């Protein structure tokens, strides 16, 4: 293995080549593409691949290849900025120093903590990014507030799958075994190639969801793996010879899962030994599944019965079966049941923690554990004030955040208390990225008295609301650790190595270290600016947060000390693996398979804190009958529920809104609302699009490229028609994440953020009983042709 080469090389002509592993910014999941960052005289020349990375083997995605454009984009903000509160919505930003930003923001934080209580501060975090590790710490141990919020209605991204895995599987996030943890990759002696992979509600090639390197599916197909694609669309992967497509009606996936299970039980085609030993409530599950005969399932899902029968036989009898579950499990009010059912299907097909099946993470590891430990920085009385936690135990047990829908309710009503200060960590959620009903959020957020934005460029959200803007560094501009699945199943991890510096941009960690040193040095001891005179011992003994406002109490910005603080922080995290930052940098890539990884951890006492064999659930088994669900008033067994906004559940609206639209699918040119200002990426997908079946398009008089408005009882948004047979008649698929950086950024236009805002069609608080799951991927709607993005 040639990977452990020196991480930085200076060439004869002065070119510097820095090996690294990518994360964010720019927005991305923790994929960790192995790259070489080529710089000269401190300037980024280009990104190349690293052939020696055993997973990505030199490959790099389009967004990371365009990093030079992103780095030097004219609209990038590279210095801290400030704007008067009365100028919100206007482009009246002024540059300030980091010292001023630290002084003023720290003073505001103290003011709100002391005047209204720390719970009056809310921190909003963006999805997928490195911020996902640090926005929890920023909230809990820097700002010492319990209110950390991911604004997506029903927390409909990854969190539900993780929580359900916690509750019913008793393990970290289960991921398809693509041999990423094994140094020998697909040819490692410990690995067996999946015979079939069920790719369900997921299109991982463009999305790389949760850090799963999506193109491993292509690698596996080349080696002989076949795919079963369960999706309302025919995907490019599904369209390959030998693969099977179950083209379900949006949001009926739980019905499909129960139908497949029923056939496996009926035909006695499942892993009986595993099921009898490790599934709790097997007989109850059989009885429940029997309520889903294949004819009924075919009718509800619109998939031919013979295809369902074929797939049930394959997953019941072929081995190994791999599973790749996606965002569609979260963006569904019935998703909690769907996730439980998928885990049970994987158990019945003998896939759990076996080669070529699903790997399991330990309950928590490395940075994931540190991230969650940060809540210890608050006393219990403050923690109890977390918004929505008491009302939604099914969410607040698995997630350390607020319940997102309740957060909007609180902001609108000031009940049970008013939120006064907001901190946006890499989240542009007025754009259609996560929040449902973003106009309601917009109105409510204006009430905040102080708003800090951490981002890389001005967005509709920062332009509308920000008072301070803290500029972020890209992954090529800071040191850090990328770990897949944010520590919930670290298939591998690697160092991000700083290769260049741009302006005064800082990383998530650096911003936490600087503000932590000011606001809570007991929990943030790493950054020690040279002029610091703080009495840390005295602060540690103080029960309440102590205001640091006197001039002698402030450390002046100290670049070298901050660099050292980053390394010391990372070294502390890496200690449990036997590394420090420097030795980890030299290692280049950490794969658990080279350090004692084992399959079938449930047999070996490696999943439970008590060291006994079994799963880390109440019963020690995989719970088909969930004790926790039952305690929270939910049906303990999986079931199917018709989506709330369909022609079947709302026949009175069927004439007005005869179509169903899904959304949220990714393309190679963007990460949610990011990258729209990068010319070479915008060229690939220049306008928001809606996919329409040719039959539906004809019925509506729409031809390819026409502008259309998609609308329903909640809102409307405009897209260009993309006519394609990969989607069934009557079903639409709308682009998300759109705004127009080239347009006027000031209020009320805000870079055109309301024009193609898909999330305006998604209802607020139409969520499942546990507080999870909203119908971003399936609401009723209608369609009409319009003249352009702006004209009727």
């Amino acid at each position, binding site marked *: 293995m040639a990977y452990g080469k020196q991480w930085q090389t200076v060439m004869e002509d002065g070119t510097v080549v820095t090996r690294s592993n990518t994360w964010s910014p720019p927005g991305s999941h923790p994929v960790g593409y192995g790259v070489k960052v080529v710089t000269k005289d401190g300037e980024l020349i280009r990104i*190349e691949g690293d052939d020696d990375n055993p997973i990505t083997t030199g490959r790099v995605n*389009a967004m990371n290849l365009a990093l030079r454009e992103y780095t030097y984009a004219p609209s990038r903000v590279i210095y801290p900025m400030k704007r008067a509160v009365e100028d919100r919505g206007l482009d009246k930003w002024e540059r300030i120093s980091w010292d001023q930003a630290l002084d003023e923001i720290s003073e505001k934080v103290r003011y709100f903590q002391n005047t209204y209580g720390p719970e009056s501060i809310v921190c909003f975090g963006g999805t997928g990014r490195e911020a996902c590790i640090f926005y929890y710490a920023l909230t809990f141990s820097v700002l010492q507030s319990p209110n950390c919020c991911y604004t997506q209605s029903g927390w409909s991204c990854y969190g539900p799958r993780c929580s359900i895995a916690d509750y019913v599987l008793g393990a970290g996030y289960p991921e398809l075994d693509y041999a990423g943890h094994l140094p020998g990759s697909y040819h490692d002696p410990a690995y067996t190639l999946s015979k079939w992979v069920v790719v369900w509600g997921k299109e991982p090639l*463009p999305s790389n969801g949760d850090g799963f390197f999506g193109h491993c599916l292509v690698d596996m197909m080349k080696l002989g793996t076949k795919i079963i694609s369960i999706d309302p669309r025919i995907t490019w992967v599904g369209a390959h010879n030998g693969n099977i497509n179950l083209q379900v009606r949006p949001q009926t996936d739980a019905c499909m899962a129960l139908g497949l299970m029923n056939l496996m039980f009926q035909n006695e085609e499942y892993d009986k030994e595993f099921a009898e030993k490790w599934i709790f409530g097997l007989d109850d599950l059989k009885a429940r599944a029997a309520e889903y005969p294949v004819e009924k399932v075919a009718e509800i899902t619109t998939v031919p019965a013979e295809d369902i029968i074929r797939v049930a036989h394959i997953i019941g009898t072929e081995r190994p079966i791999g599973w790749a579950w996606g965002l569609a499990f979260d963006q569904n009010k019935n998703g909690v049941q769907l996730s439980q059912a998928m885990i049970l299907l994987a158990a019945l097909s003998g896939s759990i923690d076996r080669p070529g099946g699903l790997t399991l993470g330990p309950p928590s590891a490395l940075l994931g554990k540190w991230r969650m430990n940060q809540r210890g920085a608050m006393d219990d009385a403050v923690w109890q004030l977390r918004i929505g936690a008491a009302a939604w135990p099914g969410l607040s047990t698995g997630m350390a955040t607020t319940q997102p829908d309740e957060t909007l309710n609180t902001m609108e009503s000031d009940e049970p208390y008013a939120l006064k200060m907001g901190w946006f960590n890499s989240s542009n959620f007025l754009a259609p990225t996560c929040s449902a009903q973003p106009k309601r959020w917009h109105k409510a957020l204006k009430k905040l008295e102080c708003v800090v934005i951490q981002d890389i460029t001005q967005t509709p959200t920062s332009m509308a609301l920000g008072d301070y803007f803290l500029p972020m560094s890209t992954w090529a501009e800071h040191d850090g650790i990328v770990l897949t699945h944010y520590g919930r199943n670290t298939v591998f991890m690697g160092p991000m190595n700083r290769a260049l510096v741009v302006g005064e941009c800082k990383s998530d960690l650096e911003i936490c270290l600087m503000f932590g040193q000011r606001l809570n040095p007991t929990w943030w001891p790493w950054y020690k600016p040279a002029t610091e005179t703080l009495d840390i011992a005295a602060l540690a003994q103080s029960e309440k947060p102590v205001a640091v406002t006197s001039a002698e109490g402030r450390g002046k910005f100290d670049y070298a000390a901050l660099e050292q603080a980053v390394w010391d922080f990372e070294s502390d995290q890496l200690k449990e693996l036997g590394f420090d930052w420097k030795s980890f940098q030299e290692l280049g890539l950490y794969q658990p398979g080279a350090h004692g990884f084992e399959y079938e951890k449930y047999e070996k006492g490696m999943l439970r804190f008590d060291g006994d064999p079994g799963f880390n659930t109440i019963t020690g088994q995989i719970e088909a009958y969930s004790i926790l669900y039952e305690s929270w008033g939910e049906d303990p067994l999986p079931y199917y529920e018709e989506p709330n906004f369909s022609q079947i559940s709302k026949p009175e609206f069927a004439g007005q809104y005869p179509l169903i639209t899904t959304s949220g699918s990714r393309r190679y040119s963007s990460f949610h609302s990011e990258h729209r200002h990068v010319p070479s990426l915008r060229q690939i997908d220049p306008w928001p699009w809606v996919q329409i079946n040719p039959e539906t398009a004809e019925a509506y008089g729409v031809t390819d490229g026409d502008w259309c408005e998609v609308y329903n009882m909640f809102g409307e948004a405009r897209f260009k028609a993309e006519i394609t047979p990969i989607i069934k008649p009557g079903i639409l698929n709308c682009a998300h994440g759109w705004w127009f950086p080239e347009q006027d950024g000031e209020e009320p236009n805000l870079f055109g953020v309301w024009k193609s805002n898909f999330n305006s069609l998604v209802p607020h608080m139409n969520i499942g009983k546990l507080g999870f799951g909203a119908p971003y991927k399936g609401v009723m709607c209608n369609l009409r042709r319009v003249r352009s993005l702006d004209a009727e």
Partner: protein
Amino acid sequence: MTKYALLVDYTYFSGNHAAEIACKEELGLPLDQFGIKEVEVGPFKKGEGNDGDAWEWFYVPCPTSIFSDHWGEGGDKAGQRPLAVQVEESASMYYGTLEDMIAKMAEFDRPMVLWQL
């Protein structure tokens, strides 16, 4: 002079645009010029049922004359590996001498595209 070629395993070339951006970066091309441009064929239905076999859907990365001028016979980069070939995410592009690429093509039992540069 030695001829060079680009071989594409287009059954698995996923249309991920990495090769397009790589050429722009490596050759310093303006926005409206391409070294590689992807072309999409399909998706269209060609058979009964809904299995993969019933669908046609593929992409081909097309080398432009800009690409051939650099990487082809006598080009300023002839014989080196194009960044596009390294980074392309489905690992389905191969570059080398025409002779080597013809031999490589024979290793596959599926349709392939061979571009002589």
